[in-house]
């Protein structure tokens, strides 16, 4: 509640009333005043009318879909903050997310497989949490690696093992489950299927939205054209009637 009672022409109080932010007592005072003061009543009505007009202003449709796609990784030697924010537009991405996951996971799985086969079954395979499987290789390895040599795989394997060891020592989280290459492949397949499904759903939704927007735009354009044609027809009709009237006047005047 304000310290002073409402006074005629107090625009701050009127604005507070207009937006419904005054308390019950002040609202009562103002409403009583509006009944007897045409000036203030008109002021409030004018402000209300302007607010109504403001409701017609909508922002244009925009292609947003921003997502943080990469985070600085100090362990990989990235010292500065290198977060990248970009729209999640599937057609503008250099490589779809599922393809990045596929490439990284394939390299990882191959590395694990080679490691297991070369060192024998007694060697503990590279156990991994989901985070290390999906995210860290993407940050560390180029996802586009169509041909991979054995040396590459060994380097990758060594790096992954190093990172996993670091993870184990750095964070005292839940114990990491033992897994084997089949399990890794199964997880990778599941992730791939899931990612692909999401991608398809997103593109389907996007397509439906675009079709809807195009259709609506077409209807608006047609309505505008029809209105323009209607205007022309009305003008032409009026002109025709004027000419008819003039002709009748001329005929009448000549007959006289």
């Amino acid at each position: 509640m304000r310290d002073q009672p409402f006074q005629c022409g107090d625009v701050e109080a009127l604005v507070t009333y207009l937006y419904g932010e005054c308390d019950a007592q002040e609202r009562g005072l103002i409403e009583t005043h509006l009944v007897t003061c045409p000036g203030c009543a008109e002021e409030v009505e004018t402000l209300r009318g302007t607010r109504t007009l403001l409701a017609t202003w909508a922002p244009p449709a925009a292609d947003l879909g921003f997502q943080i796609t990469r985070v600085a990784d100090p362990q990989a030697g990235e010292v500065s903050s290198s977060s990248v924010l970009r729209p999640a537009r599937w057609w503008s991405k250099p490589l779809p997310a599922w393809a990045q996951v596929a490439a990284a996971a394939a390299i990882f799985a191959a590395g694990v497989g080679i490691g297991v086969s070369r060192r024998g079954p007694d060697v503990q395979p590279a156990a991994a949490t989901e985070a290390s499987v999906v995210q860290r290789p993407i940050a560390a390895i180029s996802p586009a690696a169509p041909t991979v040599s054995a040396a590459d795989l060994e380097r990758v394997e060594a790096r992954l093992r190093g990172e996993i060891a670091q993870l184990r020592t750095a964070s005292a989280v839940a114990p990491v489950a033992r897994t084997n290459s089949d399990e890794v492949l199964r997880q990778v397949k599941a992730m791939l299927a899931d990612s692909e499904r999401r991608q398809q759903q997103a593109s389907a939704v996007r397509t439906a939205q675009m079709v809807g927007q195009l259709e609506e735009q077409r209807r608006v354009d047609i309505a505008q054209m029809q209105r323009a044609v209607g205007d022309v027809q009305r003008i032409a009709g009026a002109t025709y009637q004027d000419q008819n009237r003039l002709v009748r006047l001329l005929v009448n005047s000549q007959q006289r």
Partner: protein
Amino acid sequence: MTWTDEELVARSRGGDVDSFNQLIVRWERPIYALAYRVIGREEEARDVCQEAFLRAFRALPGFKGQAKFSSWLYRITLNLCRDWIRRQRRTPVAQMPEDVDAVEFASETGPAETIEDLVARRELGEVVAAAMALLPEEQRTAIILKEYHGMTFQEIADLQGCPLSTVKTRLYQGLSVLRRNLARNPAMASGIARAEATRDGRLQPELVKRV
């Protein structure tokens, strides 16, 4: 399960990028709408929107929850808008919307609105946008925060760094000048009549949930 902003912020601060991406999904449209209405240009508003989230993400370690996440984000966005306007060194000119989201529009207004209404409303919106662009930045921003983002006077005062009474004065002066500018526009005569005729009907001033 739907996380609150505060929960998502806490998870983001713990290094969970997905949580921050959820915050982006939740807030990018209001932030874009704010930037668009303040600076009046689509592409630049989009850039401001992206930069706002990027700055927020980078500054997350310093965000201690002393304010609502949304208020903090609004502040970052308004600062970016102000920087952009200063760089322009001239009154921003509202770019006529090239493509109003007619589908969203139609779905919100319901089947009662005909295509004719839609066209008229869209044209009206363009005139309103142009008239808003003529207002001083402080008045325009106060109106935008109040009308389209449903903020209280106090929230606007905090964001604009001014007393409560100044916010009310800016709103009053802004609305009054806007009305005069609109009344001078010949194209507005029928639009004003139309809007006023449907004031208690389909056209409602509350747009808080729209963006």
